[in-house]
C-alpha cells in the first residue's frame, strides 16, 4: 500500500508539470490572436499621423481656391456613406418604382434608377475625369460593378450584374451629359456636393476654416459651414479641400440631432494625373442587352397606372401654390394641393387600405394653429401634410415646421 501511494504521488507531480507545459503552449495562439486584434485596432490610430501644418488661410481665400480650381484630370476612389433615416431605399425603390417588379420593360442599367441606390448605405465609387468631355463613374458592388462612361457625345451605362447596357446620345440626354449622370439632388462627387453647399450660403450661414486634415494621403484645409439660425436639421457641413489643387476631397454633412453623419463622401485614393484613355472607351460586350435612351422613355409612356404618380406630381407643380416660407436654412416650401384634399381619407377608395396603413405608420400626427396633419420625418428633411391639403417641406425640425405652418395660416 505504502509503495503504491508514493508511486501515485510522483505520478501526480510529473503530471502537473507536464500539464502546465501543455497548457503553456496555448499561450501562442492566444498571443497571436491578441497581437492581431491589437494591430487591427491600432493601425488606423497610427496611420492617422495628425493634422498637417499648413499656412493660415481665411475662409474667403479657401472658397476662392475651390472656385478657381481647374483640375481637369482626376481619378480616384470615393467612399460614400449616407444615412438619411430613410428605410433602405435601394429595396424600396425596387419594389415601388414603376415597372420594378420585373415586367422587363425597364433596364437595370438606367442611370437614374441606379444612382438612387446611393441614397442609403455605404458605397465605394470610382471616378475618373479627363476634361469636360470624358468622365467615368463606377459603383463597385460585390462581384459586380455599375459604370457610367461619358465620352464625347455618348453616354454609356453598364451594369455587369445583369449584363445590361444603357446608351444615350448627348443630344437626347440634353446637353451636358455630366449633369445627366447625376440627377438633381444627387451629387456624386465631393466637388459637386461642395458646390451645392456653397450655393446655399448667405447671411444665414457661417463659413469658417476649421484647421487642417489629411484626406487620401493629401494635406487639406477644412471648411466648416454652419447655419446661424436654429431650427435647421442640418448641424454642420464640413469640406476638406486639397491644399495644392483646391479640389474638395471630403464632404461631411452632420445632422443637428447629432449621431452619425447623414452624408459622408470622401476620396480614399486620389490621383491628379491623366487617367488612362482606355477607361473612357466602351463597347457593349457580346450578348449584353442594350437599351437606348429613347426606347426607355417610350416604354415608360406606355406603362399603365403605376406611372401616373410621377405625372400627377408633375402636374401639381404646374398648378399654383409653391410658396417659400422663411429664408436660408430654415426655408420651408409650402405646396397647395389643388382640390384641397389632404391625405386620402380611409375608405375613400383612392388608396388601398394597406397603403393607407403604411402611410399612417410612417408619419406622426401633429396639431397646431394651422389645424392638424401628419409629419413625415427623416434625419434631414421633414414634411408636414395637413388634413386640408397643404404640404410643408423643409430641412427643419418638426417644431420649426409646425411654426412655419402656423405663420402661413
Amino acid at each position, binding site marked *: 500500500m505504502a509503495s503504491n501511494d508514493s508511486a501515485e504521488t510522483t505520478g501526480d507531480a510529473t503530471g502537473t508539470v507536464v500539464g502546465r*507545459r*501543455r497548457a*503553456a*503552449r*496555448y*499561450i*501562442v*495562439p492566444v*498571443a*497571436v*490572436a491578441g497581437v*492581431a486584434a491589437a494591430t487591427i485596432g491600432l493601425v488606423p490610430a497610427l496611420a492617422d499621423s495628425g493634422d498637417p501644418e499648413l499656412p493660415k488661410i481665411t475662409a474667403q481665400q479657401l472658397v476662392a481656391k475651390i472656385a478657381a480650381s481647374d483640375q481637369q484630370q482626376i481619378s480616384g*476612389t470615393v467612399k460614400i456613406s449616407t444615412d438619411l433615416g430613410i428605410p433602405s431605399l435601394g429595396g424600396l425603390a425596387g419594389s415601388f418604382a414603376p415597372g420594378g417588379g*420585373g415586367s*422587363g420593360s425597364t433596364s437595370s442599367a438606367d442611370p437614374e434608377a441606379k444612382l438612387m441606390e446611393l441614397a442609403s448605405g455605404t458605397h465605394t465609387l*470610382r471616378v475618373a475625369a479627363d476634361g469636360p468631355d470624358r468622365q467615368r463613374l*463606377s459603383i*463597385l458592388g*460585390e*462581384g*459586380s*460593378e455599375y*459604370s457610367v*462612361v461619358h465620352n464625347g457625345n455618348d453616354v*454609356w451605362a*453598364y451594369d*455587369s*450584374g*445583369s*449584363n*445590361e447596357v444603357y446608351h444615350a446620345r448627348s443630344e437626347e440626354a440634353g446637353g451636358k451629359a455630366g449633369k445627366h449622370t447625376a440627377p438633381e439632388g444627387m451629387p456624386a462627387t465631393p466637388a459637386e456636393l461642395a458646390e451645392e453647399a456653397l450655393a446655399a450660403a448667405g447671411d444665414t450661414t457661417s463659413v469658417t476654416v476649421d484647421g487642417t486634415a489629411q484626406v487620401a494621403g493629401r494635406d487639406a484645409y477644412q471648411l466648416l459651414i454652419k447655419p446661424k439660425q436654429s431650427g435647421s436639421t442640418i448641424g454642420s457641413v464640413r469640406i476638406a479641400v486639397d491644399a495644392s489643387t483646391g479640389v474638395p476631397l471630403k464632404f461631411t454633412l452632420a445632422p443637428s440631432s447629432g449621431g452619425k453623419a447623414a452624408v459622408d463622401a470622401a476620396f480614399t485614393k486620389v490621383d491628379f494625373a491623366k487617367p*488612362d484613355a*482606355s*477607361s473612357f*472607351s*466602351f*463597347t457593349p*460586350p*457580346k*450578348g*449584353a*442587352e442594350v437599351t437606348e435612351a429613347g426606347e426607355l422613355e417610350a416604354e415608360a409612356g406606355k406603362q399603365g397606372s403605376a406611372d401616373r404618380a410621377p405625372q400627377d406630381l408633375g402636374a401639381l407643380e404646374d398648378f399654383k401654390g409653391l410658396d417659400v416660407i422663411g429664408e436660408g436654412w430654415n426655408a420651408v416650401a409650402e405646396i397647395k394641393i389643388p382640390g384641397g384634399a389632404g391625405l386620402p381619407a380611409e375608405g375613400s377608395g383612392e388608396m388601398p387600405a394597406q397603403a393607407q396603413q403604411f402611410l399612417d405608420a410612417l408619419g406622426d400626427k401633429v396639431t397646431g394653429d394651422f389645424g392638424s396633419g401628419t409629419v413625415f420625418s427623416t434625419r434631414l428633411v421633414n414634411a408636414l401634410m395637413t388634413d386640408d391639403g397643404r404640404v410643408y417641406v423643409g430641412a427643419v425640425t418638426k417644431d420649426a415646421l409646425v411654426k412655419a405652418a402656423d405663420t402661413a395660416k
Partner: protein
Amino acid sequence: MSRADLTTAVADGVPGAPRRALWTFGILRSELTTTLRRGRTLVLLGVLAAVPVLVGVAVRIETGDGSSAGPDGPHGPAFLAQVAGNGLFLVFAALSATLPVFLPMAVGVVAGDSVAGEAGGGTLRYLLVAPAGRARLLLAKYAAVLAFCLVATLVVAVSALAVGALLFPVGEVTTISGTRIGLGEGLLRAGLIAVAVAVSLTGFAALGLFVSTLTNSGIAAMAATVGVLITVQILDTMPQLDAIHPYLFPHYWLSFADLLRDPLYWDGIVSDLGLQAVYVAVFGSAAWARFTAKDITA
C-alpha cells in the same frame, strides 16, 4: 516580460526533435500522395468538376434557342449573365458558385479528416514512429491540405474553362468595369483569381486542422468543421451582426471579383489575405499546441 519568459521556456521544453530534412520531405510526399489519391478525395474533385458542367449546360439550354440572353429578375451567382457572351466567364461564374459552399466543404472534409482520421484508424502512432517530430508531421499534414485547396480550385477553373470554350464563344473579355482586355490577359486574370480563391481557403483549412486535432473521430471532425463553416456563413449574412463581419473568414471571399475590375482594385483582396493570415496563425498555432501535447492512444 513574464510572457516572453514563458514562451522561451516552452520553446526550450519542446522535446528535441531530430532535424532530418529527408524525413520531413518523405513525410510530406507520403502525406500528399495519400491525401490526393484517396478515393474520397477523387470523388470530391469529381463533384467539383461537375459543377461548371451543370452551370454551363444550363446556361446553354436557356440561351440556346431563344434570342434573349440572361435571366430576368434576381440574379444568380455573379457573372452568370456574361457566360453566354464569353465562355471565359464560366470560370468566374463557377468559382463564385462553388466558393460559398462546395469548395470549403471539400476542404473541410479533407482538413477535418487529416489528423482525426488517422487517429481513428489507428495509424497515427505509426506515423509518429518516423523520427520527424510532431510539429513537422502537422506541418506536412497542413501542406497536404493546402495542396488540396489549390488542386480543388484549379479543378473547378480548368473544368469551367474547358466547358466554357466548348459551349460558348471565347474572345476578348469585357471587364466588369466595362473596359476590354485581350484573351491572354483574361486568362492571366482567371489564373490569378484561381490562386486568390485557393489562398482564401487557407484560413478555413487551418481551422479544420485544429478541429481535427481535438478528436479521434474523423467523422466528428469533418462534421464539426463543416458545421462551423455553415454557422459562420449564416452569421455573415445577418445585417444585425455588421460589427463582427470583417472578422469572419468568409467575409472577403467574393472579393476575388475585384481582380476583374479595370484598373484592378486591391483593397478587398488585401483585407482577405490579411484575414486569412491571421486565421492561419491563430488556428495553426492552436493545432500545434494541441497536437504536440496530445496523448496519442490510437
